[in-house]
């Protein structure tokens, strides 16, 4: 099943997990301690985040640590930036139209 990053961040728990592991890599148990939901539910969220390639796993001894894929987060930024640019362009065009109209009025 194909997943994308927007699906990953559509869920509030997953956004909270992202914020948590942004600071440091954590084990599933340590992550689960921050939530009221079950360990199983947290595992499911981690699985989705992994499938979206937003987090990566690293084995350290017997523990698995989850950390954030910063590059992937940048994709979200880029996407939002495109949307922002449309409006920037559109409104810069409107500035020009308004200044022409103002001159015509005088």
């Amino acid at each position, binding site marked *: 099943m194909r997943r994308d990053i927007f699906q990953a961040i559509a869920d509030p728990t997953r956004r909270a997990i992202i914020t948590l592991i942004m600071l440091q890599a954590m084990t599933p148990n340590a992550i689960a301690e921050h939530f009221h939901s079950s360990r199983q539910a947290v595992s499911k969220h981690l699985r989705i985040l992994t499938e979206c390639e937003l987090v990566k796993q690293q084995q350290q001894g017997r523990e698995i640590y989850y950390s954030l894929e910063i590059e992937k987060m940048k994709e979200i930024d880029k996407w939002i930036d495109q949307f922002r640019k449309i409006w920037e362009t559109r409104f810069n065009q409107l500035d020009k139209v308004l*200044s022409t109209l103002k001159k015509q009025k005088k």
Partner: protein
Amino acid sequence: MNDLLFDFTLDKSKKTAFINREFDADLALVWDAFTKPEILDQWWAPKPWSSKTKVMNFEPGGRRFYAMVSPEGQERWSVQKYSSISPKTNFKFLNAFADENENPELPGSEWDLNFSEENGRTKVSVTIYNESLERMEKMIEMGFKEGFMMTLKSLESLLATLSKK
């Protein structure tokens, strides 16, 4: 550049985009620029696209049926149905992509535009609520794919010229 306010935020959990912008013009003029088709068509489409309004009745229950036209002449139609209008203060509409016969592609997005003037400047606040995030992505693609492709094309021809040397 100027010091006019511009901010853009996207709240994915609320499926809403918030856009605030100040204009160096009085309220009456900015209101006209948003509500009169002949002015709207001059700035609505980010270049190199252009905007072509076919029908526009700016009144509650009325609509604007328009196309974004690509540099190659390809038309992407949309219909905006006005749900409420408070002159020079606010208007709301439901925006949906459509075919050339005005058949809408639902669900659309809900737009809410607020206007206020202070010290000769007019602030416009736009919120856009999208029931589906996919649609929001489509909205972006439509505005940008063409422009981006053009950039790639000119890069290609530039590379071709360079490699001939």
